[in-house]
């Protein structure tokens, strides 16, 4: 394990790096699935955009030393911002940027909740979407709430991530019946009903990767 001090049982910089690697993996694997979601109610590029972004992030990460979770997330933020484009680029870019600022050197459950809330705050600041507008906010919102609940119940950081991932997945699924009110899908009006929002889905996949990276021993125990 390199860089950043860590306490056993906590989420430190190694986890953050593992998360990025898992993210790149999952974006590559879900590239076409995300394209298909976006074809249905958008312009069919979301999977391509995210894959391009995380491929670049991974390359950057491999040639960069990072001391803290914040370093890793800042690198993600900057790279997504300059490689993804579209709506997702600035939104995810801002999310990771705010998250990087909120992240301590290791994350307990409250730390996870803080990071997720910061990310959510960044997305809302840029995109002005509310819950149930059928956007990625519908995944980040429930995820950060679920993490906060674990923290309040005294759970661990890993548990917080797992709960967040589950909530994001449920949130993404729950976008299906919604009518889009933000982003490209809003042009479709009622015709957006019955389709899952691609950004909410990519969020769910990324948080699943976060939990997985912790469970796979990416967590610094």
């Amino acid at each position, binding site marked *: 394990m390199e860089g950043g001090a860590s306490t056993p049982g906590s989420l430190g910089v190694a986890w953050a790096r593992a998360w990025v690697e898992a993210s790149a993996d999952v974006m590559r694997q879900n590239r076409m699935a995300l394209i298909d979601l976006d074809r249905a109610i958008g312009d069919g590029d979301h999977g391509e955009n995210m894959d391009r972004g995380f491929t670049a992030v991974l390359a950057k990460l491999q040639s960069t030393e990072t001391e803290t979770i914040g370093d890793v997330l800042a690198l993600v933020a900057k790279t997504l911002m300059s490689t993804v*484009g579209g709506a997702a680029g600035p*939104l995810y870019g801002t999310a990771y940027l705010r998250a990087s600022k909120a992240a301590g050197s290791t994350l307990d459950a409250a730390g996870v909740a803080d990071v997720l809330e910061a990310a959510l705050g960044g997305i809302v600041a840029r995109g002005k979407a509310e819950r149930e507008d059928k956007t990625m906010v519908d995944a980040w919102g429930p995820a950060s709430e679920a993490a906060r609940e674990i923290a309040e119940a005294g759970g661990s950081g890993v548990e917080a991530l797992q709960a967040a991932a589950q909530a994001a997945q449920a949130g993404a699924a729950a976008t299906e019946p919604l009518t889009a009110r933000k982003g*490209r899908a809003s042009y479709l009006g009622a015709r957006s009903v019955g389709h899952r929002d691609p950004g909410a889905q990519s969020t769910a996949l990324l948080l699943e990767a976060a939990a997985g990276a912790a469970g796979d021993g990416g967590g610094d125990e």
Partner: protein
Amino acid sequence: MKKLINDPQAVVAESVEGFVAAHADLVVSSGDEEKLFVSRAGGAMSGKVGLVSGGGSGHEPLHAGFVGLGMLDAAVPGAVFTSPTPDPIVAATVAADGGAGVLHIVKNYTGDVLNFETAAELAELEDVTVTSVIVDDDVAVQDSLYTAGRRGVAGTVLVEKIAGAAAERGDDLETVAAIATRVNENVRSMGVALTACTVPHAGKPSFDLAEDEIEIGIGIHGEPGRERIPAASADEITERLLTAVADDLQVASGDRLVLLVNGMGGTPASELYIVYRQARALLEQRGASVERSLVGNYVTSLEMQGASVTVLRLDDELLSLYDAPVHTAALRWGA
């Protein structure tokens, strides 16, 4: 999917390379794949307001085809149907600045707006004054709390042409921005698709249309429209588009207009003229007069078959700016 391409990932870079080679008298490329933009050969003109636009690729000739005398100073092509990131926009903005500031002409899509917004902030850090005008001429989308607002579609060409003429005659940034805004306020568009298009990296059509269906109110990204209706005659379809456009613009007797019938990329010119014929007749029925016309591929969606109808209401100044010389790869007169 059959396309005249090599690597789907290389489409934009290779196409821009061909474009600047073919039009070396007009444009140069930044050459930097990470910060790709096309700008006027000869560089920024000292004292002239710079005009920068951009957005996802796949809409050619928009925007690079409109770089040149009397129109844009730089164009930033993103990946196909994907807004460019802030970095190349910043680079283009700096390159286009002749000291009088730069106008960003941004089509109203969440991605374009956010990326240009960030780029404008970053460019200000490099001491370039930036003003942005958002183009949102597509009446197929209701501008309400329940949408991301109207999209910018073919009307963008008219904003770029007229604002470009204002910049070329020496207007200052505020004035050029005000004129661009005035064009945007007086222009409306709506489109139809007979077939979908296929984004190279997706490899599949953006939507599926039956042999007897068409999409009304499509945007320019292969996104489905608001409504799917049975195939109809050109006159019926045109009436539908024109009526929506003219009603929204409140075209009245005596109005002087530009009529732009725009092909989506895969439509024969003959069909565009059939649409033009009917659109013009309907405008004349309202007592308006079509003073200038454009018929052709200006703002496309790859190989999509379909068309859009754009109407701009003119005043004396807008007309004289429209008529001012322009010399770009895709629009040329008076120069």
